[in-house]
């Protein structure tokens, strides 16, 4: 029996879809059977980040309404045997799926997959309620900004109210140099405020833009710092004890030099 994990944030644009795509791909690369579910109905994105947009025939609404069988809607990734996507519907609205339908869907999926990872839409409305309905664990993504942390706090409260206890935190887009200068909240600051456990930290990384352009998640690129962070998180999800990587280090000149001459 697999595990259903929802990736949420409250605030939009902080990196939920990027996180879902990368952790999912990393888990598949470790040999697990993974399905990524896009619940952002009307604003389908996960397909593009994964580079699977041209292969969509059916979507989540077709499945929950019985227009097709589950198997027909799942898109199988060609790079990793175990990786699958259940795309969101693009033309319907958020109310096209109900929390009860989501629960049933997740129940079915976790019979077949080791990990069911749900990409939640921004906000706290129906789309959020749908996304968390069938989940057993939650991950909250934030960036080191006042508004994002505030929304994360709200989401943590709502998850608690929905009996999704003990959510894990991802801090995305950290810029170590700014933290050092005192111009960005540090991981410790954010954990201190939100009081939940950390799943991982992702540095600001231009490679995210490059890899997203190509539809190849950053975890596939061994030079991407963000990719490394996501690979570590995937291993933590499987229960492995992986230390946080040193973010400070690699921004240094010497390290960049080392990388250039193939030392890393």
């Amino acid at each position, binding site marked *: 029996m697999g595990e259903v994990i929802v990736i949420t944030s409250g605030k939009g644009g902080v990196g939920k879809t990027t996180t879902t795509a990368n952790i999912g791909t990393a888990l598949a690369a470790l040999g697990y059977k993974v399905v990524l579910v896009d619940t952002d109905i009307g604003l389908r994105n996960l397909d593009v980040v994964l580079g699977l947009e041209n292969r969509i025939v059916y979507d989540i609404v077709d499945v929950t309404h019985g227009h097709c069988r589950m198997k027909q809607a799942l898109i199988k990734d060609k790079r990793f045997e175990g990786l699958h996507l259940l795309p969101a519907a693009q033309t319907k609205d958020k109310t096209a799926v109900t929390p009860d339908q989501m629960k049933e869907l997740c129940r079915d999926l976790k019979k077949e997959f080791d990990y069911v990872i749900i990409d939640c839409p921004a906000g706290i409305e129906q789309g959020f309620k749908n996304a968390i309905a069938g989940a057993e664990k939650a991950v909250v993504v934030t960036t080191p*900004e*006042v508004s994002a*942390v*505030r929304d994360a*706090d*709200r989401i943590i*409260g709502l998850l608690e109210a929905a009996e999704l206890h003990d959510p894990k935190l991802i801090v995305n887009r950290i810029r170590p140099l700014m*933290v050092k*200068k*005192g*111009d*960005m*909240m*540090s991981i410790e*600051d954010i954990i201190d*405020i939100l009081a939940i456990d950390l799943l991982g930290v992702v540095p600001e990384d231009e490679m995210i833009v490059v890899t997203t352009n190509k539809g190849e998640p950053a975890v596939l690129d061994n030079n991407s710092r963000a990719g490394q962070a996501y690979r570590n998180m995937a291993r933590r999800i499987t229960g492995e004890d992986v230390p946080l990587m040193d973010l400070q280090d690699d921004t240094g000149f010497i390290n960049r030099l080392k990388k250039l001459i193939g030392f890393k």
Partner: protein
Amino acid sequence: MLDFLLRVFGRETSSSKNVAKERLRLVLVHDRADMSPQLLQELKEDLIKVISNYMEIDENALEVNLDTSDNSVALVANIPIIRMKRSSNRAEKIG
């Protein structure tokens, strides 16, 4: 310039990160103080229980609210007293 010097000499208090933290702290006091009516009702009932050990109060006129102002949140209660209890009476109740 002063700001720059302060930063160079390690006076962290002026850094924008600390401003962010302080703003967050305040905004979250407000956000989290957004108690549900149900929770407020439970608080009221508990208050009545405790206070009744000391005095007789008008339960129907009792008011308990969260009062939020710019930089603080207070629990404000207005509890009309009907009669004080005698101390012997009280000892009995608590004892």
